[in-house]
């Protein structure tokens, strides 16, 4: 029971780190980006290449996965995404699905279509028993890293000038511009960091979520749930939504294996019926 809870929390925090960038892009630019999972996949495969092929130590590969995914995100934002902000949601959906369709065969062309595992240091394979809760070291690491990241993000968004500018731009982009906030630069930065975090999450979660070229589609709805249920008003909503989702998914699959992911989708439909704007959306929000 508690072990499930523990696993669920680890899973949920991972989803949060991957998806948190998505909530900002939606809130700030009203952009529906279904290709966000592709950046997570990129981070996973970058780590596979670095660790398995080039022998880079796992812990050195993680920051690299972040940086390279962030760079990829920045380049994509400046060259491609920048052209679709003003387009309709339908076009944004088409555009981002197109990117997913390109990313999947590209990965299987260069790296093969089979599932990949990242070689992690041996000490991460052990399990600890604490008060009868069996905790895998790897999941503990995920909770630790993702917890630190969540706290760091919360700090940046809530305490720094950049965070204030970000929140101001989400609140009212037009007035923010009129008062001298460079909304486009704030957004590009956020997009890059969001992509980097997705990449880092993809690297950390590769062995847990299963890394193969179908990754962006397989988890698309999960990332969207975090955003739609969590809202885009801050970091807390998506974090809580992600952890709830993680716990629900893990326990659902454990206690009701015959239903598979049925449970989670049904739950989501119920939640969205109850609160169409998300569980944590502020009233009158976009």
């Amino acid at each position, binding site marked *: 029971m508690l072990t499930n809870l523990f696993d669920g929390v680890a899973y949920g925090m991972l989803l949060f780190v991957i998806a948190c960038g998505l909530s900002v892009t939606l809130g700030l630019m009203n952009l529906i980006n279904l290709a966000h999972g592709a950046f997570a996949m990129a981070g996973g495969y970058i780590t596979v290449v670095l660790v398995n092929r080039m022998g880079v130590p796992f812990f050195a590969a993680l920051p690299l996965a972040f940086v390279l995914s962030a760079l990829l995100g920045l380049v994509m934002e400046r060259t491609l995404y920048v052209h679709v902000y003003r387009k309709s949601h339908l076009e944004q959906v088409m555009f981002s699905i197109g990117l997913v369709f390109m990313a999947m065969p590209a990965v299987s062309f260069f790296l093969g279509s089979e599932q990949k595992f990242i070689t992690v240091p041996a000490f991460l394979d052990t399990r600890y028993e604490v008060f009868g809760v069996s905790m895998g070291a790897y999941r503990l690491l995920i909770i630790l890293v993702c917890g630190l990241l969540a706290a760091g993000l919360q700090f940046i968004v809530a305490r720094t*000038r950049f965070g*204030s*500018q970000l*929140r*101001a731009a*989400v*609140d*009212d982009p*037009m*007035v*923010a*511009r*009129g*008062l*001298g*906030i*460079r*909304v486009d630069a704030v957004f590009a930065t956020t997009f890059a960091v969001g992509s980097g975090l997705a990449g880092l999450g993809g690297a950390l979660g590769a062995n847990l979520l299963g890394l193969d070229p179908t990754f962006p589609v397989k988890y698309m709805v999960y990332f969207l749930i975090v955003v739609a249920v969590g809202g885009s*008003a*801050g970091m807390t909503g998506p974090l809580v939504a992600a952890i709830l989702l993680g716990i629900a998914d893990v326990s659902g699959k454990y206690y009701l294996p015959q239903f598979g992911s049925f449970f989670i989708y049904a739950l989501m439909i119920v939640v969205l019926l109850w609160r169409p704007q998300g569980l944590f959306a502020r009233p009158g929000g976009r």
Partner: protein
Amino acid sequence: MADILSVEHLSAGYGAAIVLGDVSISLPEGQSLALLGRNGMGKTTLLNSIIGVTRRRAGIIRFAGVDITKLRPEQRAHAGIGWVPQERNIFRSLTVEENMTAVARPGKWDIARVYTLFPRLRERRANMGNQLSGGEQQMLAVGRALVLNPRLMLLDEPTEGLAPIIVQELMAALARIVRDEGLSTIIVEQHAQKVLGVTHQAVILERGAVVYAGTSAELQQNDAILEHHLGVTGKKHA
């Protein structure tokens, strides 16, 4: 003295709607201007055009001698235009202090000075933007524009919907900024008498066109014009 702002033959609106047609105004540096007119006559659109959030059809806007027509709103703000929007538009998920730190630029106006001007804001510094009263929101909107350290302030109906006591306090603060600091200012108002005593110049807009431009002192004495353009009779040839 050189003009801080000159608007020449500006025509602008939103989407297909044209609100301003061929408007020209100018303001010498260090002076203040009351922009008057009844509701819906284009005052806010003119202000929004100066900050750059409307659709311009024709004309140019010069700021401190430089053509800023092509600049984006944030570039105009950096050039030295401070804006107090009509709806105040306080960032609701930011605290009072963050509303200012997020936009502050170095200069003689810092947050401490704004707190001296509006002590009420200091008490409320940790409150979120959406927890303020109308008067506090207005003070914050003014303070937020001040910490941009602008050379020109644009104030859109700063007293609208406020209690008389708050209006007095606000107008006193504005008078200090305009008179003692010599900050160039444009104040949009529906109620002429509230601002004519504070400002140097006055312009009346009617249906998107300038129908009066002169000094505030002159206008204050001219009941006929006040009644004609700002009163309710609406008789064109009264």
